[in-house]
């Protein structure tokens, strides 16, 4: 009888289906919001909606009132009044309910990632040749290109981690290793003085970084920046885990 084989098969198939459904599928959002439409076609900058990025650890999800600011309540029809998706926003607004967006870029809870420090960071802290040789056409997600994007600043800086959101209809994670420590470290190791400082963190500190290590030498390896204050140590565990 095939019943047995059939049941077995169905179990195996369902197993795969469940695994797949939890991994690769695009998260289903309550509203089919298009980043592409808003950023490229309508020229909305990232921090118009993610307004806390430069001031806080969290970049912030726009409050419903921000959406309603352009998409207006029914009587004041502003942008795209007839869209079905816009209607969904208005429904949420009318009900007085927040929109339950699904989190896409999630880092583990034991990591403290401050958006503000990254948004405000001085690009000169990178090694001078960091980001050189970026081939945007063929390998836009190579380390070189990510560094180059970060150094460019502005909205390009956001894309160095989040990918080119301007081309995305639905939001998804671009880098396979996103949020893993090695992925963070790739860039953090390109910061001036990081490796040298890392060396001082070892038990051999005294020899590498002894008394004669004056301000000039510190500046030369990037511990002190052009403005004369000390760069933050980006390789210490306590920078993110506390």
């Amino acid at each position, binding site marked *: *009888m095939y*019943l*047995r084989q059939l049941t077995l098969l169905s*179990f*195996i198939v*369902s*197993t795969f289906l469940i*695994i797949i459904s*939890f991994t690769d599928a695009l*998260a289903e959002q309550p509203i089919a919001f298009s980043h592409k439409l808003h950023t490229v076609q309508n020229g909305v900058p990232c921090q118009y909606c993610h307004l*806390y990025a430069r*001031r*806080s*650890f*969290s970049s*912030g*999800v726009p*409050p*419903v*009132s921000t959406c309603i600011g352009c998409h207006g309540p029914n009587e004041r029809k502003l942008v795209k009044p007839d869209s079905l998706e816009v209607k969904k926003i208005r429904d949420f*607004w009318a009900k*007085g309910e*927040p*929109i*339950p*967006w*699904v*989190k896409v870029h*999630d880092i*583990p*809870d*034991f990591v*403290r990632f*401050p958006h*503000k*420090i990254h948004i*405000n960071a001085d690009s000169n802290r990178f090694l001078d040749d960091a980001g050189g040789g970026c081939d945007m056409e063929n390998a836009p997600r190579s380390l070189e290109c990510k560094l180059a994007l970060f150094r460019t600043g502005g909205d390009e800086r956001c894309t160095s981690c989040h990918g080119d959101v301007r081309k995305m209809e639905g939001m998804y994670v671009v880098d396979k290793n996103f949020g893993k420590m090695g992925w963070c470290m790739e860039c953090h190791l390109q910061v001036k003085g990081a490796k040298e*400082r890392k060396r*001082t*963190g070892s*038990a*051999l*500190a*005294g020899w590498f*970084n*002894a*008394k004669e*290590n004056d301000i000039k030498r510190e500046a030369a390896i990037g*511990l002190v920046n052009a*403005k004369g*204050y*000390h760069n*933050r*140590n980006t390789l*210490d*565990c*306590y*920078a993110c*885990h*506390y």
Partner: protein
Amino acid sequence: MKKGLSRRDLFKYTGAGGATAVIAGCEKKPEKLIPMLVPPTNFEYTPHNAYNYMTTCRECDSACGMMITTREHRAQKAEGNPKHPISRGALCARGQASMQTLYNPSRIAHPLADGEQISWEEAMKQFSALLKVSSGAIAYFGKPSSGSEGEFIDEWLNSAGGGKRYRFSLLTQNSQREANSVSFGRPVIPDYAFENAGIMLNFSTEFLEGWGSSVENARRFTEAHAYRNGNKKRLIHISPHVSLTGAKSDRWIQIKPGTEGLIALSIASVIREEKNNYEFLKTYLESYKPENVAKASGVSAKKIRELAKDVLDNGPLMALAGGNLIATDQCVETLTAVNILNAVAGALGKTIRFYDQDPAEVTSHKEVSKLISDLNSGQIKLLIIDDSNPVYALPPSMEFIKAMKKAFVVSIASQRSETTHAANLVMPALTAYESWGDAYPRSGVRSIQQPVMSPVNVFDAKAREDIMINAVQSANQNAFSGMGTYLEFLQIKWRKIHSEIGNSDNFENFWISVLENGGLFQKPVFSSVKLSRNVISVKVNDPGMAEKDGLTLLPTSSIFHGDGSGANKPWLQEVPNPMSQIVWDSWVEINPDTAQKMGINDRAIIEIMTANGSVQATVYYHFGIHREAIAIPMGQGHKHSGDVADGFGINVMELLPNKLDNAGNLILVGTQAELKMVNEKSYTVNTDGNARQLGRNIAAATTVEKLAKGEEHHSKHSRPSEFYPDRSETAGYYKPYRWGMTIDLDRCNGCSACVVACYSENNIPVVGKMRTAIGREMSWLRMERYIEGKGDEYETRFTPMLCQQCGNAGCETVCPVYATYHNPEGLNAMVYNRCVGTRYCSNNCAYKVRRFNWFDYEFPSPLDQQLNSTITTREVGVMEKCTFCVQRITNAKHDANNLGRDLEDGEVMTACQQTCATKAITFGNLMDPESQVSKNALRNDQENRDRQYEVLAELNYKPAITYLKKVNIREIDDHDSGHH
């Protein structure tokens, strides 16, 4: 072959299905991002960032200024308001624990009628109907209040048709007012100008732990008392009992209970003779000359004369008296005697000054007795008990609860208590941190209390005053006309202040500046006083308590539980009492000599019997108590105050008779108690392993003399050469910061505010009595108490012990997964997500400051709302310890980074340092030679060098914490621990 599925196959398939489910379960479920509907626009909001609001602490009557840190509109941490003249940025343990007043799970969630939940409409309907029918027969029973609330209650009672108000506090200074009224003609509480004193005589006052404004007292006392420029002013404790304040004193003169007044007059008689002033006191004081009081007080005439000489040589004098232990039947007389001493020694106007503002009115027990008889006779039909717990605070012998049943009782309260349990109608009130108010604790200080967040969402409560306004308005339409809330009433009062002080700015701007500053602070105004000639009619007699049968019962005040309102705060139960190191309990202090004579061993359970009742409690051997006395701290032994308070310890009030002194206040001292052994062992939990240092020199002390002679001078310890290269401050390892701390043991008085602050800042779980008993308490910072010497000549030393952030740590080398390591800023970092819980580090830590999470500890709702969101709340299987508040360092570095500079000295304060009233803790960058911490810890000049030491320096762990030795005026001969 059978058709279909065999049993075996079924298991196989379900097994596969189960595995599928497990795999699916392991996959991370996507989290939701819930945005706000409308972001707040009327005040600033950025997620994760801290916003501070100034308000007033209402845990006791001192009205310290408070700064509450809120994140995402939730209060997370209480700190002192640095601009406030009373607290100057500091808070005591109770103030720190105010966050647990706000988020206490035992808060009342709904209006209750005889214990049953009812709706607000129903409750308000009942309340206003009651007001209507009982017009003229209303009594209001509340707490003392110095601000606008007094006038509010008067106006409210007027609109309700008249009634009497009672403002009761268990820890009153009523007798002091009476004494000052007799002595100086003014019923005021003086300002104690410690800074002007040359020598301080303390007659049993617990001024560092709950008497008066203890935060202000601690700050001003320490500024005067701490070792400076080779000098130290002395505090002499004249008392039958050594409390925390006594432990800080330089000398303890043991007297018989109730004889403080005799000693004061005796010292005054010698001083007067010498100075030949106050002629009218000549014959009066002569009868109290040292030889006459020596027998009654138990202090030799020679000793009294020595004390008098000390005062004459080292003045100006400041003599303090007050608190529980002088509340004998001669309380007013004792306080008058101390007033005479102050006057004769020339302290008036110099060290004892009087404000021109009268303090808040406080009801005496005599008036409460009148209320009880009025209740019994049916003259009062409606009793409103506002935020007060008389059922607990009054001795059962007064029979308040019986009288209370004669009237209809409405209780307005935020916390569950014995009173709300017995009340007919209970209205849940907001706490002080969610509502408006003000306080004028003394001249020049008008402190504002503003809501720091919207009410905690799990309680359906309303502001106390708003409940009262609404109720009276539905009973009387003319009441509070045009006012809907207490805020409006408050603003009318503040408009008056605004015009009085002649502020040229408009009221709105003035009001905003008041809210920003936490109040209106002006120079205090003093008025001069003169000793009245009438004092000679005040006779102080030998109380003869020590000669009576039984032991004199001394109900002492508790630094944590106060009038009992502190008992339902988990932190205040969990943090060990600094003197006894006992947690979650009450105890009976007894002199070891007396106890041994009676055959009672330490930690035995005894029954304490008085004429009024009997209780059972654990014995605690205490050298610092007269041999004919026992002491029991107040504030514990609740029955209906929530899970954390109920059933722990005993209520000492149950032992007291209903006897009042001349000022009409309850006599606390004068009851004789009999003891009976019940059980040789008790289940009492204390956190000190050994009260003795056993030569380890953890809490070191030196003497003024030794420092002067340079005997303490030692060049820095020469350390053995080592395998690892030098990581000291000069070697260039630490760039640009090496965080370090100094703790000045001469300033620390053991008040344990730092310990509670640490719990609050760092999400430290409370584990309870049972787990503390097996050594699983989680405190990152503990207040170690050590006893030196024996018998009457003994000394108590306190050492705050926390992670020493060793440069050469024992913990780091044994961690198999590098979860703990030395970071480039000198912190002994602890990475929770790396920790696998071997606990090797804790075993190898010589300071025993690492704590292991044996469980996922609970923060019962809504206490979880208090958790600091800037750090990780640890979970089961992870080691944790003090991080020097790394979250504060990191956040400050982020801000400095954005401003383009390095951190400056004093920019980062650890939570323990921030709350310390005596500034015993200094924290900062050891790489900066000009930082305060560098000066204290590293300077090799005489001022700093001779007191620096590291705990267990011989282990060569190179701690980042340098302690500064306590400075004594005499050498304590420690028999037990040998020399050190």
